[in-house]
């Protein structure tokens, strides 16, 4: 049987490379990647702890005094989670949010990392 040819899927990568050649674009892109990765890491760790503990999102919401829809939206919707809500969820799940320094930072202890 004849091999089915695959379509060239490199358009996106080529456009991305062109865009990244622009300093303004690159700066914003890199800032967004760091922000997205950090928020995603925290939310995934919290969700993993919730699942491991057998707790539903509704259970978690009740324990922190929020509506179930509020907690569901924290994991998916267009909201900027309040720090105190994140801390409350971490606390209920037996974890905490901590600020730690990046190895390259010239301060004693101050960039963020999740230890949920």
């Amino acid at each position, binding site marked *: 049987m004849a091999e*089915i*040819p*695959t*379509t*060239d*899927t*490199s*358009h*996106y*990568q080529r*456009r*991305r490379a062109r*865009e990244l050649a*622009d300093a*303004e*674009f*690159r*700066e*914003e*892109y890199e800032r*967004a*990647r760091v922000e*997205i*990765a950090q*928020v*995603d890491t925290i*939310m*995934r760790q919290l*969700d993993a702890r919730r699942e491991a503990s057998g707790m539903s999102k509704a259970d978690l919401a009740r324990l922190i005094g929020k509506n179930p829809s509020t907690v569901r939206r924290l*994991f*998916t*919707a*267009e*909201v*900027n989670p309040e720090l105190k809500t994140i801390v409350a969820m971490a606390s209920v799940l037996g974890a905490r949010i901590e600020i730690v320094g990046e190895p390259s930072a010239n301060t004693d202890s101050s960039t963020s990392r999740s230890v949920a």
Partner: protein
Amino acid sequence: MAWDVVFYRAADGTVPVDDFLDACPTSVRARLFAILDAVAEAPPPQFSGGGHWEAMHGAMGGYFEIRAQGPKREQFRLLCVLENAEASELKRRGFPGPALAVITGLRKPWMTTFSANDYTGVRLLGDDYRSTIPRRIAS
């Protein structure tokens, strides 16, 4: 394994996503690319979304939204479908592996909603995309 990101190409050769991105402010465009890369590197359901990526419902079921906010809180969206199937089916569609297919983009002022016509327009493009084998994409 990271997914490919592909842009739908209309029968007349235009690429609605490219046109949409060209009209976005640089900061918004950079953010949309950052989200696309985050999703492609940790495909559903690994990526939590964190407010940037969400499955759509109702008449837009089967679509996913990438969300970014621009100056004056203007809202920018990329409307996507997932190309995730058995290897033989992906091959039939022309893909070497799973892909995130971006159909088009929409933008709206803060605190307004997209109209039914906006979504109908997206579905028309999406239907055209899904009706072609192999898929018609920008190359």
